[in-house]
């Protein structure tokens, strides 16, 4: 079975401080992992995926297969980063559906 765990329901940091949102997964095989973000009153949107190895809005995430983690990091948080963040794993079935973590609400304080 595949599972995604986000241990922090809520996370608050001050503007300019580093931020790390934790994500751990369980999966038998080669995982494909994503971070999705939902800003207030907006729809869920893709932030980044591990295979693209991009930095989006200053965020990066590295897949660590040994620790089965895919933590999201940003060195200097901005107030506009306040949002709900979901870590997700692409399914093993033909549907390749996403299995989501429970989400972390990030608040960046001024």
């Amino acid at each position, binding site marked *: 079975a595949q599972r995604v765990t986000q241990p922090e329901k809520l996370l608050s940091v001050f503007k300019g401080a580093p931020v790390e949102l934790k994500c751990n997964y369980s999966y038998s095989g080669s995982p*494909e992992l994503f971070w999705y973000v939902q800003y207030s009153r907006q*729809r*869920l949107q893709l932030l980044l*995926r591990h295979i693209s190895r991009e930095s989006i809005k200053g965020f990066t995430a590295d897949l660590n297969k040994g620790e089965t983690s895919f933590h999201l990091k940003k060195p200097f948080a901005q107030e506009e980063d306040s949002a709900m963040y979901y870590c997700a794993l692409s*399914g093993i079935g*033909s*549907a390749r559906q*996403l*299995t*989501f973590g429970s989400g972390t609400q990030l608040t960046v304080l001024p």
Partner: protein
Amino acid sequence: GAGVSQSPSNKVTEKGKDVELRCDPISGHTALYWYRQSLGQGLEFLIYFQGNSAPDKSGLPSDRFSAERTGGSVSTLTIQRTQQEDSAVYLCASSTRTGSEQYFGPGTRLTVT
């Protein structure tokens, strides 16, 4: 271009009634997914359509739930004899093909009273 659209945006219904939720995917997207976002269960997969292939219904929670996709485009999720535990936000997503980025709609918030 236009993104994924869903209607209605909000639906309040009485327990026991049937409801239909609609999803218009991005034009040209062959893969379509339904997810449910509820307080107790988080975001969970319901059903998947790819082109004219038989849908993957493995996420549907009960036989009261069904979905169809007509002409490979618009999809309708139907919940029969609604129960209070069906209250949730129902999200639709589409992608150009299976496994590529999924684009989400704004969701339909269903409240069963």
